[in-house]
Every structure is written in structure tokens, then in C-alpha cells.
């Protein structure tokens, strides 16, 4: 069996391409083999990658396509032979054309049009080598990349210039050209060896794999990743240290940045340990791609591990690199130290004042204004959600400090420090723990290392909700809620955050009241009420009002509706994601004014668990029975008691009142089982009512009273859900 090796060598690829491109190319080649060779399981196409090369290796291939036989149709039978049954001229010509000397090879075929002579011709399978040579250039040209460029031929694009193509079928070159590159049997090893041995002639496929291995190149991305992890573990063991937690994405980046990984450990001056550990590890990871280390008790150590791309087995080279790594890190830390200490010289007030000059969004004012809005709206939500006095006053304090660190030098230099810097600076300024913590935690929920982190207490959670509420409602009032895929201001994510937080913390509050409050307090007759300080220089006269004046006042009901339906759409998605059925969700939120996230969730959860309960089933049955009769009279909601004098009517009214009373008095408020039990008592009265009373009588006032009564019952039941939407 034959083997195929393809190596596309290029300028250093971005790590995401290192991670993903090889399998795209591998599966294109696998598809090609499957389609052309009609081979199944025994076919194997392996793909590897490093930053310098994408490699495809395939075994168990045939040398060529299978031979095929085809039938060639000749002239009609009646003119093919003469009287003596010898070939006539048309047949002789046909035989000549097809290189047939023996007339015995001619056969007769019956077609629709009549009988014809024909011959069978053998076609030799094309060699796979040639087929690949035709296929590969087009395949490479059609690849999709995250970002691509051209270097010589505009029709050849790749993430970085292609520098060589090694293509071997067994020991032969698969010959093709692609832009400025001709395929060959040459490969290149590590970049830094290129002066010593610029290129390597690859004699055969096993030689290729050996040569790379000899030079310390680990071709398989996953192997390289685990190799690095092992090296790190060993290095840490030696240094008596523990690796700080890292994201898988970070590990992928490190893996994609080297083909010959070698760990280098270094140290930095103890004096930098006075910097916040978050800042230290940020500088090491983000800027230098180093792994920070901690001791067994979790304290950060003045040490790191970097992964170099050299076989740094030479002591001198190792020391060069170690020294270089340490020096660069020191320079970076000096920078961070400079900004951090400079920030600490200034009071928090100074930064708050500066947030007046940081625009949140055109038409929505500065962060200073945003903070004031969210603080006001948060107090309302906190009251609705029954926060304690203490929590409310802590919230008030924290909310005004949420964004001041955006004006600090540290956040300017290291944007990932937002929230963290705020927490640290507030702590240093003597704020209490709950308040300073809220500054960091108002950016939660966050995904960190695959886990979702939630704010640790009510104050933080309310800060987070209020900030997001302000974002969503502000953009609603600008009529800029996202539609379609794009969501450049992450408004969808903000809304999802509100829902997740509300459910996590079990808050009950009305989205509609929040929207109304927001509008009433910050806008009146199209003018803003919440002014900036008035200290802003002339150039900052972009108004909170500009966008709203035009849109908000006339279209308030429409904007209100779009806010609620935006919230509802996110809520439904989250419920579906949690595994609730479509009809269960619809019965609670469709065709009603969506209002309270947590209560809606509780109802859906109850329905999902009790839908199959006998009592629930029967309630649904009577609900649908009533609904069928009254559907066309939904506007009739009053009834005249004196007209409803039949025993079945009286019985129904009595049991309805009893159920209603029971539910109203019930504690705790979310006893939906109690609700179900109470209203289940209506099942028999409703059924006997329908069996004995004609609702749609000719007597119009009487009919209205009956319908009115029934609609009242529906309205009460609807407080749980719209049973008519439940499907069994």
C-alpha cells in the first residue's frame, strides 16, 4: 500500500490557525479520497500542525484508481455486417477507432432505438499521485481562514505567506505549483537552525518524521500540549511551587507558539510582590506568556516559567534566554509599579471626577452619569426585592464607586484590571469590604476556567444588575437594541446577565416598573433631568438628551414593548437551555406582559414538574373547556350574581370563591401546589355546570353573566399559566 505526505510550510501562523487549520485540510483530503477511491474504514488521514507547518499523512492508499470497464456503442446492428455476416464498413471503422482487431470482441446490445454493436473497453486507473497534483492547489485556494493575506498571486491566500510545500506520494514528489511555490521534497526545521542547515532533503516519509523528531519538533498539537503540561509539572516540582490556574485558551496559545517547547524558569525582584497578585499574574501571562507560580499556601512567588521555542539544552543558550526573560519581565513590572504607585497617590474622588470625561456611549453621557443613573435605579430594584436597610445603604455607597477605576492609569494600561483595581484602591481608601468587593464583582457573572462565577452577596449582585439594566434600557431608549447576529455593545449578554443574576439570587422585581421608573426619573418631556456636574468643558456637550428627544417621547410605548420582548426572548432561551419544554415556557410568558423573571421561572419549573399530575391534567381540561366557550367573548369580565340562580351556577360560584380565598391567604406566596389543590376543587362544579347549563343562551344579559363568571375563573387560573397552551 502507498503513503502520502503533505507539509505546507509557512511564516509563523497565529495559534488559532495552528489549532484548527490542520483538521480542515485533513478532512478536505479525506473527502477527496473517499469520493474518488470509494474506500471506507481502512483509509486513514492524520493531520498535525505547528506554527510553521501543517502536515497531512495518509496510509493504506492504493497506487492508482481502480481500472474500470466501459461499454462503447457502435453503429446499428443492421448496417454492421454484410450478407456474409462479415463486418461491413461502419463496423470496420468502429473497430479501427477503438483499436479492436478481433471481431469476436464485438457484442450486440439492445437499446430502445434498436440493436447496436458495441465493445467493452478497459480504462486504466489514473495514478493517485497525479490526481493529487491536480486536486491540491484548488483545495488550498478554497480554504477559509480567520484572516488571510496575499503575497504574490492575488488568488492564493493564506494566514501568512506559504514558504514551501513538501508533497510526497511514497518516495515521489507530487508535482504542482501554487502561486510562487512549487511543491518538492524539501523541508525546513527550526527557524533558529536555519543558518546551519537551511533546508533538508526528505528522502522518504519515515525519514521526514525522524528528522523532525531528532530536532525536537513535536508535530502533533495535542501531544505538544500534554508535553508542555508535563514539563511544567516537572519544573514546578523541582522549584517546590504550584502553577497558578490558567485557562485552556492560554495553554492553546502557548502550544501554538512553539514547535519545540522547552521550559525556562526565572525570577523577579521581591520588591514587586507589593503589587496586587492579579496585576503580577496579568503582566506575566498576558504580556509575556509566562506561567506565574505560587507556593503551597497559594501566595504568589517571585518566579515564573516561560516556554521557549528552542532545544535550549546548551547551558549558555539557556542562560541567555533566562536572563532575557527576567529582564523583560522586570521592565514590564517596573512599568506596572510606576502606574500603580502613581494611581495610589490620588484620592478616589480625583478619579470619580475624571469619569465625567469618559464617554459611555454617544447620547448616553459619561460613566459619571451612568453611575448616577444605575445607582438610582438600583435603589428601586433593591426595595422591590426586599433588601435590608444595611444592604441598601451599602449598595448606594458601592454603586457610586463602580466605574472610577476606568480613569486610573493601571486600567488604561491593563484593561483587564477593571474592577480589580477599583476594589484595591477603594480598600486602600478605607472603604469597607462589602463595598470594595462589589466594585470587582459587579462585572460578574464571569466565566473563568470554564466555570461561571457569581457575585458573592446581594450588594454585588444588585450593582451588577443595575449596571446592566442601565445599559439595556439606555440602548432601548436610543432604539439600538441588537437585531440579527451582531451585538457590538454586548447588550444581549447584559440582558442574559440580568436574568442569570436574578434567578441565582431569587430576586423578585417588576421589569415594567423599572422601565417606567427609569424613564420618569431621567427624562421628562424629552429633557434630561440627571445633569452632569455642569463642570464639563465645552467639548463634552454631547447630551444624554440628544438621542432621546427625538425618539423616546413619541415612541415610548413601542420602546417599552421592545424592551420587554427583548428581555422575554432572552428569558425563553435560557429556559429552553435549562431543559424546559416549549409549551411549558409558552404557557407562562406568551401573550402576556412579561414582568418578573424569578416568578416566571418558578411557575415554569412547577408546571414542568406537575404537568403530568392528575390534578393538573384535569385543571387543564376544564380550562380548555371554558376557554373553548368564552374565547370569542374575552372582553366580558363582569357578571350579575342575581341572574346566576341555577344550583350548578351557585355551586360553581361558591367553590370558585372558596378556592380564590384559599389561594389568597396561602403562605408562602409561591405555593403552586396549594394553588393547584385549591382550584382542583373546581373541576367537578365546572363539569356539572357545562353538563346542565347552556352558556350561549338567547337571553343576552344572562349569557353575559355566565361568560363573565367563566372569564373570571380563567383570569384567576391564568395567574399560574395559560393552560390552553399546554400540550399533552
Amino acid at each position, binding site marked *: 500500500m502507498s503513503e502520502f505526505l503533505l507539509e505546507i510550510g509557512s*511564516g*509563523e*501562523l*497565529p*495559534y488559532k490557525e495552528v489549532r484548527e487549520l490542520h483538521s480542515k485540510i485533513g478532512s478536505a483530503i479525506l473527502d477527496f479520497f473517499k469520493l474518488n477511491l470509494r474506500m471506507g474504514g481502512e483509509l486513514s488521514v492524520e493531520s498535525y500542525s505547528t*506554527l510553521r507547518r501543517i502536515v497531512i499523512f495518509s496510509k493504506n492508499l492504493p497506487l492508482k484508481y481502480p481500472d474500470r470497464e466501459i461499454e462503447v456503442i457502435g453503429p446499428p446492428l443492421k448496417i454492421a455486417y454484410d450478407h456474409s455476416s462479415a463486418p461491413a464498413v461502419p463496423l470496420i471503422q468502429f473497430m479501427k477507432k477503438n483499436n479492436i482487431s478481433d471481431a469476436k470482441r464485438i457484442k450486440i446490445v439492445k437499446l430502445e432505438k434498436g440493436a447496436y454493436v458495441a465493445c467493452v473497453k478497459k480504462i486504466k486507473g489514473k495514478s493517485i499521485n497525479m490526481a493529487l497534483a491536480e486536486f491540491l492547489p484548488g483545495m488550498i485556494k478554497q480554504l477559509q481562514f480567520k*484572516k*488571510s*493575506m*496575499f*503575497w*504574490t498571486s*492575488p488568488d492564493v491566500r493564506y*494566514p*501568512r*505567506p506559504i*514558504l514551501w510545500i513538501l508533497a510526497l506520494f511514497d518516495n515521489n514528489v507530487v508535482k504542482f505549483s501554487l502561486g*510562487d511555490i512549487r511543491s518538492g521534497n524539501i523541508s525546513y526545521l527550526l*527557524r*533558529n*537552525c*536555519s*543558518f*546551519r542547515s*537551511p533546508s533538508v532533503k526528505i528522502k522518504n516519509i519515515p525519514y521526514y518524521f525522524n528528522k523532525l523528531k531528532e530536532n525536537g519538533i513535536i508535530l502533533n498539537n495535542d501531544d505538544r500540549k500534554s508535553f508542555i503540561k508535563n514539563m511544567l509539572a516537572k519544573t514546578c516540582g523541582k522549584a517546590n511551587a504550584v502553577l497558578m490556574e490558567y485557562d485552556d485558551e492560554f495553554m492553546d496559545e502557548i502550544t501554538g*507558539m*512553539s514547535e519545540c517547547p522547552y521550559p*525556562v524558569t526565572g525570577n523577579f525582584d521581591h520588591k514587586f510582590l507589593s503589587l496586587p497578585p492579579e496585576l503580577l499574574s496579568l503582566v506575566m501571562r498576558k504580556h*509575556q506568556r*509566562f506561567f506565574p507560580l505560587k507556593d503551597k499556601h497559594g501566595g504568589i512567588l517571585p518566579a515564573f516559567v*516561560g516556554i*521557549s*521555542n*528552542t532545544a*535550549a539544552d*546548551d547551558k*549558555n*543558550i539557556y542562560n*541567555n*534566554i533566562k*536572563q*532575557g*526573560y527576567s*529582564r*523583560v*519581565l*522586570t*521592565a514590564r513590572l*517596573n*512599568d506596572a509599579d*510606576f502606574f500603580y504607585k502613581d494611581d495610589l497617590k490620588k484620592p478616589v474622588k480625583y478619579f470619580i471626577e475624571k469619569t465625567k*470625561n*469618559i*464617554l459611555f456611549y*454617544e447620547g448616553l453621557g459619561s460613566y459619571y452619569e451612568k453611575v448616577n443613573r444605575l445607582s438610582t435605579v438600583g435603589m428601586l430594584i433593591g426595595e422591590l426585592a426586599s433588601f435590608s436597610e444595611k444592604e441598601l445603604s451599602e449598595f448606594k455607597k458601592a454603586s457610586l464607586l463602580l466605574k472610577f477605576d476606568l480613569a486610573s492609569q493601571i486600567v488604561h494600561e491593563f484593561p483587564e484590571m477593571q474592577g480589580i483595581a477599583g476594589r484595591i484602591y477603594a480598600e486602600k481608601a478605607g472603604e469597607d469590604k462589602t463595598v470594595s468587593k462589589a466594585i470587582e464583582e459587579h462585572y460578574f457573572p464571569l466565566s473563568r476556567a470554564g466555570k461561571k462565577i457569581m457575585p458573592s452577596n446581594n450588594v454585588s449582585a444588585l450593582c451588577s444588575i443595575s449596571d446592566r439594566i442601565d445599559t439595556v434600557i439606555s440602548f432601548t431608549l436610543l432604539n439600538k437594541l441588537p437585531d440579527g447576529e451582531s451585538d457590538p455593545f454586548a447588550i444581549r449578554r447584559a440582558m442574559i446577565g440580568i436574568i442569570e443574576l436574578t434567578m441565582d439570587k431569587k430576586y423578585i422585581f417588576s421589569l415594567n416598573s423599572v422601565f417606567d421608573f427609569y424613564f420618569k426619573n431621567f427624562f421628562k418631556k424629552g429633557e434630561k433631568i440627571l445633569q452632569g456636574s455642569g463642570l464639563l*468643558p465645552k*467639548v*463634552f456637550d*454631547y447630551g444624554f438628551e440628544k438621542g432621546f428627544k427625538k425618539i423616546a417621547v413619541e415612541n415610548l410605548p413601542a420602546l417599552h414593548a421592545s424592551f420587554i420582548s427583548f428581555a422575554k426572548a432572552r428569558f425563553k432561551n435560557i429556559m429552553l437551555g435549562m431543559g424546559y419544554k416549549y409549551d411549558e415556557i409558552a404557557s407562562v410568558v406568551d401573550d402576556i406582559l412579561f414582568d418578573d423573571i424569578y416568578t416566571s421561572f418558578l411557575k415554569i419549573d412547577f408546571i414542568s414538574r406537575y404537568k403530568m399530575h392528575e390534578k393538573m391534567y384535569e385543571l387543564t381540561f376544564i380550562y380548555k373547556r371554558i376557554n373553548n366557550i368564552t374565547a370569542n367573548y374575552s372582553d366580558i369580565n363582569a357578571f350579575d350574581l342575581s341572574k346566576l340562580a341555577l344550583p350548578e351556577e351557585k355551586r360553581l360560584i361558591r367553590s370558585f370563591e372558596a378556592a380564590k380565598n384559599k389561594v389568597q391567604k396561602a403562605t408562602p406566596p409561591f405555593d403552586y401546589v396549594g394553588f393547584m389543590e385549591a382550584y382542583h376543587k373546581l373541576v367537578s362544579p365546572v363539569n356539572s355546570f357545562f353538563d346542565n347549563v347552556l352558556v350561549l343562551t338567547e337571553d343576552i344579559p344572562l349569557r353575559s353573566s355566565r361568560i363573565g363568571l367563566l372569564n373570571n375563573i380563567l383570569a384567576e387560573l391564568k395567574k399560574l399559566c395559560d393552560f390552553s397552551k399546554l400540550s399533552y
Partner: protein
Amino acid sequence: MDFQHLIFKLQNFWSDFGCIILQPFDMEVGAGTFAPYTFLKCLEGKNWKVAYVQPSRRSTDGRYGENPNRLARYYQFQVIIQPYIKEIQEIYLKSLKSVNIDPCRHDIRFVEDDWESPTLGAWGLGWEVWLDGMEITQFTFFQQIGGIELNPIATEITYGLERIAMYLQEKESVFDLSWNGRLTYGDIHKNDEFESSKYNFEYSSGDILFSLFDLFEKEAKSLLACKLVKPAYEYCLKCSHVFNQLEARGLMSVSERMNYILRVRSLAKSCAVLYKETAVS
């Protein structure tokens, strides 16, 4: 290796390679890319190989000479190679060897870095080059300049001279760099840093800067109307410089900032289009 010798070595290397060595462009620019030697010349799409030192301004980075790594004014060594040369990374590594950095004895990395200049309407893909973890060079394959697709493309190599010198001289502060064995970088430039920062952050006049921007923009536009592309481009550079001063002074809101960027970009684009029409044909 002294600072000035580092420059000599690089100049010699690229001169030997076949580049013409130009002297610095004589106006305030943020980077070597802004000099017409790069911005306009690459639009011609001819055989263009050039190297030059470009004194560059980054007003917001000034720190009164107090921070050992931050400067309001610094030096770039800019190389432009057009059209594309397949061996360009190897040639670059050889240039490092010429300044006593042996790529075989260090961890040299080409780290993904996609370059884009919103004010120039230019972008390209390439790398930051790391020498044992320190970024010493920007390496870019320009795809577009002034909104115009380049064909052939140009390769830009920008060396950070101070960084490389600090590495070679093992200095922790840029001001301690030896310029020629007698004087230091600090002797020559430390006071510039202090005064520049004072001016950039505290004393520049917003009113004057805002009106200068308007005046320069007006002049650029009228020169464009007369089809005088190089003078027009020079006024576009003046606008860009004033914009940087305004930014350093913190005098623009985010939206205004965007607006000024768009105004500079629109001038730059007009210059590029006009240059392509006139100089190239």
C-alpha cells in the same frame, strides 16, 4: 554596541542588501509608516527598497523622563521591501546577527500581530518579533494603504532601536544607554522628555490646537484640489500630529476622537488616491 553604532550597523546591512538609505523625514510623525517614503511610495507598486531612521512622536507615552521605558520621542529604524521576497524573515534574522544578536543562541519568536492604522486606512498581517521575550521589531506584510489594495505588497520591518540597544547594553533604563561611549541617551534627551511631557500634558493650548487642526485640514483640502499631493499629504501629517497633541492633553471625548480620526483618514485616503492617479500613471 553604542546607540549610534547600532544605527550604522543596520544601515550598512540594509545598504549592502540593496536598500537606498534615506535620511529621516523632516516632520513630526507617529511612526516611520507615516513618512511619504512608506505611505506614498508603496502605492507606486514598483521595486522599492529603502531604509531610514525615523524619529517618532508618541506624545501620550511621555512620562517626564521618570519612567525608564517610556518616551514621548523615540527612534525607529524602518525598512521597506517591495515587492515581496520569500526569504525576508531569514534576511531579517541575518540583520540581527549583524548587530551581534545570534539568532541561534536566543529564543526568537514571530508572534502573531495584525497591524492596522485607522488614521492611515492601512492594514497588514505580520508579527511582533520577540527576542527572549522582548518585542524588538514589528514585521508587517502591508495589504492596504490609504484604503488602496497594494499589488505587489510591501513588507515593512520596524526595529525599536532603544529596545534593542537596551538589550545589547544590558541597561535597565533607556536614559542610561551609551550613545557613543561618551554621552548617554539621557544626556541628550532626558530634558526633552521632561519638557515635552510638560507641554503635551499641561501647557498645550486646546483652543490653538483645535484651530490649528481646522487650518491644516483646510490647507490640505485646497492643496488636494490643486492636485499638489505631497504638500497636501504634509498637511495631513500636521493634522495627525495636532490630533495626537489633543489626545495627549485629554481634550477630546471618545466620539469626538473618532470624528477627528475620520477627518485625518479621509485626508490620507484622498492623498493616496490622488498619488496613485498622478504619480503612478
